[in-house]
């Protein structure tokens, strides 16, 4: 009892700081904050011909997608080869059609809501306090995190920029339509720009990965690798970059990976997303997709 009395200040302080810690955990991972409701943009389906689709392909007058599976570095890699008549079919969408914090949905659920033909997880902007958020021609966040971003312009051009070098407003003025703020860049001008020691959040281990690449005008690839399972080890960034190079990408960019890595195609999840050691889809803030 005497000891408790002597250390009463420490005990009260400890209780206070534990409550503060619980609040931070809830604020970071649980409490939803909606900043803006967004009307996910849809483009008129001008396809007049017949639609041909199966588990591995989709084709109409405007969009052609072929899905292939590769096996490299003890890892299964899924590649969606995309040819578009118009680059405007390459889009992004928010979870719950809302820009905010801790607002997440499964990639497949967001994809279904926007009638996506093909979708991958995006940059998971929601876990960051800063970093550009520019989606479908609208700036939602213009604070720099110093990230290396992929800028997708209205004309379909891909450009890698650093947030410290140019503002979101300047990029919008130049014609930016979507910005993906995760990184790093894997390939620019057909050359690998990551080294074997490059890291994302200090991780250079083999992990599930998601990447987007541009091969030529209106010709893109979405790439997702399995990982963290007994059948697939996962890829390092350098292995991913090397693989993207074999696909002849002019520009390739790493998106949020790990448990987030998900590819959705024709109504099904293509890969084996892993969450907490189990094959299970993890909810994310946003997706990149192909659709009308």
């Amino acid at each position, binding site marked *: 009892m005497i000891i408790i009395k*002597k*250390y009463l200040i*420490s005990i009260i*302080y*400890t209780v206070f700081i534990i409550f503060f810690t619980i609040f*931070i955990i809830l*604020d970071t*991972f649980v409490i939803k904050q909606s900043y803006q409701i967004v009307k996910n943009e849809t483009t008129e389906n001008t396809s007049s011909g017949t639609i041909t689709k199966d588990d591995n392909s989709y084709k109409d007058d405007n969009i052609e997608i072929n899905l292939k599976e590769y096996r490299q570095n003890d890892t299964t890699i899924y590649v969606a080869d995309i040819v578009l008549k118009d680059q405007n079919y390459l889009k992004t969408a928010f979870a719950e059609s809302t820009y905010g914090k801790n607002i997440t949905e499964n990639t497949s659920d967001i994809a279904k809501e926007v009638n996506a033909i093909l979708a991958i997880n995006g940059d998971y902007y929601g876990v960051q306090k800063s970093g550009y958020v520019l989606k479908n021609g609208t700036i939602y966040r213009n604070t720099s995190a110093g990230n290396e971003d992929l800028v997708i312009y209205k004309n379909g051009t891909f450009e890698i920029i650093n947030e410290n070098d140019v503002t979101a407003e300047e990029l919008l003025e130049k014609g930016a339509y979507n910005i993906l703020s995760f990184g790093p860049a894997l390939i620019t001008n057909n050359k690998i720009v990551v080294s074997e020691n490059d890291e994302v959040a200090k*991780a250079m281990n083999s992990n599930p990965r998601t990447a987007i690449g541009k091969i030529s005008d209106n010709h893109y690839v979405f790439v997702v690798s399995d990982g963290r399972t007994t059948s697939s080890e996962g890829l390092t960034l350098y292995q991913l970059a090397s693989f993207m190079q074999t696909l002849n990408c002019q520009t390739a960019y790493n998106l949020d990976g790990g448990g987030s890595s998900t590819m959705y195609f024709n109504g099904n999840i293509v890969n084996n997303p892993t969450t907490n050691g189990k094959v299970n889809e993890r909810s994310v803030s946003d997706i990149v997709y192909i659709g009308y």
Partner: protein
Amino acid sequence: MILYTSDTNNLEITYIITTFFILLFSLVYENFSHGVMSINMLTAFIYPIIGYILISRKKTNVLTINLVNMSVITLTLYNIMKGVLDIYGTTNNLINIYLYIGIILVICTVISLIIKKGGGRK
């Protein structure tokens, strides 16, 4: 008020157990982090060690021990929370509050130690 052996012995044991617990927690957390390494997480156990050294000194007064306790828990939690957020790949500016309070408490602890030392010379 000066604390003598029986009180400080209990506290020393608490600090030793805390140090090992934090070290074990950090290693287990890192083991399941899929290769994401956080220096903050791995070095969190250093604060309880420093606390142990300070409270092990003879004739440490109650105020100083309380300040050491509060400094250690604040900075240890800062490192652990920073590690958790780093490993998850997210940020939260609120964790800087641990750091600011921790620094203030460390300054107060140092002042308390200096005053006591100065008083001892008189």
